[in-house]
């Protein structure tokens, strides 16, 4: 697992171990020194306590000596040390109480000492007062009673026990201080040795590991730089081909742009022609509409003609009916004339002249009959002509209706053509617009292709730089390998020469 560690991690691990070792040694030394200092402080403390106790005894002796001198001489000047010792005693006693606050035994002795001191000072005070008021002899007797001497003895014994206690403590604290000093020396010595050994071993391991790892990495870098050179060569070749292809594409795009512009111009012309066609189609639509109205007028006129012709046919029938009456009248007149002729013939000579008249009447009747036949023939001709005309007119009317329907279909077709022409116009406009957009897009593509071509050239240049950089990288890797693994550098030379060949 450690082999897979990174370069920085290994360095951090090695330096970490060294720092940790130094930290352990430092902490241990610090604590040992602290214990030594503490022991020394306690020793000093004990010395201070003993000094205070000596001061206590000294001030007490000063007070007793001053009082004794005043008793002997009666001179107030001998009381000066007595007055100076009184506050010092109070202060020293308080100091001792504070210095031994952690020692119950000493506190109890101080508690026992305080009444003795008070009694001793009270005895000294009464002695001085006696000397000052009653003179030497009473004072002498009072001193000779030995009360002050006994108190002083008790005080000396008690202070002596306290000093013994402090002396014992001092010895013990000396021993502790010496032990701490020994421990400190041991920690510093062995910790330093262990730290040196650990740092040396870790440095050797890290150096070896890093040399191996960097050597492998340098080999990889050499291989990669060789591959990079090969790839850079291929890329340079590809960039040249790409540059050539981009030039061809640019030329093709330029031709496409020219074609697109021609198409746009053609689409514009188509749009104009489509608009003209739409206008013509609308005009044609109006013309067709007028034509349809004319045909409708013709159809109405034909209907009127048919109506008139049918009316004429009816009138012809009525004439025929009247003619039948006339014909019958002529026939009956003829019959009457014939019968009159017969009667006239039967009347003999008397009826001759009547016969002539009857004969004329008969002739007239014959002529009327003949004229009637002619009229009937004419009427038949008229009726036949009327029938023919009616049939022809009806045929014409049907033809007009068919024409009107055809015209309607033509109008519808024209309207459809007009609509489709409008659609065509719109489509032509859309084509024109699309073609313009296409031309713009092609121009943009052309610009983009030019940019790409420029980028390709720059890529070609960059590829050359990459190739040079790969060569430099190969040299650098070889130098690095020589720095890291001199013994492997010679083995790596063939590969380097191969990479040079590449």
């Amino acid at each position, binding site marked *: 697992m450690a082999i897979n560690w990174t370069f920085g991690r290994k360095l951090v691990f090695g330096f970490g171990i060294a720092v940790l070792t130094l930290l352990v040694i430092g902490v241990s030394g610090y604590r040992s020194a602290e214990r030594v200092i503490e022991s020394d402080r306690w020793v000093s403390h004990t010395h201070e306590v003993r000094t205070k106790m000596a001061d206590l005894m000294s001030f007490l002796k000063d007070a007793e000596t001053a009082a004794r001198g005043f008793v002997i001489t009666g001179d107030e000047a001998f009381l000066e040390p007595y007055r100076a010792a009184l506050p010092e005693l109070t202060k020293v006693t308080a100091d001792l109480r504070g210095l031994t606050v952690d020692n119950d035994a000493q506190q109890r002795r101080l508690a026992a000492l305080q009444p003795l001191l008070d009694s001793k000072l009270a005895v000294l005070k009464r002695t001085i007062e006696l000397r000052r008021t009653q003179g030497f002899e009473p004072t002498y007797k009072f001193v000779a009673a030995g009360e002050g001497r006994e108190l002083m003895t008790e005080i000396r014994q008690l202070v002596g026990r306290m000093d013994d206690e402090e002396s014992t403590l001092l010895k013990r604290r000396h021993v502790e201080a010496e032990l701490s000093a020994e421990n400190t020396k041991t920690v510093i010595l062995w910790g330093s040795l262990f730290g040196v050994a650990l740092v040396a071993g870790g440095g050797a391991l890290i150096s070896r590991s890093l040399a191996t790892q960097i050597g492998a990495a340098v080999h990889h870098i050499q291989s990669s730089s060789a591959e990079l050179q090969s790839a850079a060569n291929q890329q340079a070749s590809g960039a040249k081909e790409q540059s050539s292809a981009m030039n061809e594409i640019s030329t093709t795009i330029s031709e496409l742009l020219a074609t697109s512009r021609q198409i746009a111009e053609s689409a514009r012309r188509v749009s104009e022609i489509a608009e003209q066609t739409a206008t013509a189609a609308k005009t044609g639509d109006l013309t067709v509409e007028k034509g349809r109205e004319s045909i409708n007028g013709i159809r109405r006129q034909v209907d009127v003609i048919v109506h008139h012709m049918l009316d004429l046919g009816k009138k012809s029938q009525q004439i025929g009916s009247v003619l039948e009456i006339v014909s019958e009248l002529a*026939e*009956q007149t*003829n*019959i009457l*004339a*014939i*019968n009159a*002729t*017969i009667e006239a*013939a039967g009347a003999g000579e008397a009826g*001759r*002249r009547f016969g*002539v008249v009857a*004969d*004329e009447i*008969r*002739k*007239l009747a*014959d*002529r009327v009959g003949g*004229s009637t036949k002619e009229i009937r023939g004419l009427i038949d001709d008229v009726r036949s002509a009327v029938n023919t005309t009616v049939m022809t007119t009806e045929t014409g009317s049907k033809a007009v209706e068919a024409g009107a329907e055809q015209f309607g279909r033509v109008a519808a077709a024209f309207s459809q053509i007009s609509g489709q022409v409008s659609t065509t116009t719109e489509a032509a406009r859309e084509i024109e617009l699309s073609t313009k957009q296409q031309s713009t897009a092609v121009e943009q593509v052309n610009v983009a292709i030019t940019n790409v071509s420029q980028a390709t050239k720059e890529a070609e240049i960059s590829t050359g730089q990459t190739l040079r950089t790969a060569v430099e990288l190969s040299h650098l890797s070889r130098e690095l390998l020589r720095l890291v693994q001199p013994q492997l550098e010679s083995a790596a030379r063939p590969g380097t020469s191969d990479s040079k060949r590449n």
Partner: protein
Amino acid sequence: MSSSTSIEQKLSILRQDFDQSFARAAGGAEQAELDFLAIRVAGDPYAIRLSEVQSLHADRKLVAAPSLLPELLGLSGFRSILTPVYDLAQLLGYGPQQTARWLVVAQSASPIAFAFGDFDSHLRVSPGRVSAPETEHGNAVVGGAVQNDGITLPLLHLPSLVEAIAQRIKAFGPSQER
């Protein structure tokens, strides 16, 4: 234009003939001419002497009457005289005809009339245009012919028809006549 001109010419001729009819003297050439009636029986043209006809009628009402003679179409009244009417077509050997609206009352002692299909015209022709009776025809009721405008009209002899009918009626006898 031409038709109107033709009609005006006809009108002028009619006026002229009408005026001249008053100018002509009574009698004269007409006495030499003969009068005939041009008729059609079953579509065939025939001529009848006007002198053999008592009167000419058309569209007269016939009342059917039972008879032993199938040619009898019925009875009709002429000048208050009840007259039997015979189908001339059947008498001439044609089959029964659909229409026989024309009637001629023959000059006869007993009233008798004959019905036929069509009456063409009254003819007045010269005697030279009337041929002799045709005996070889085998039928006495038709004798001779009349030429008129290039058409030959067989001449019916109404007295012979009347006689033939009388003979046939007589042949049936009085009891059968009832």
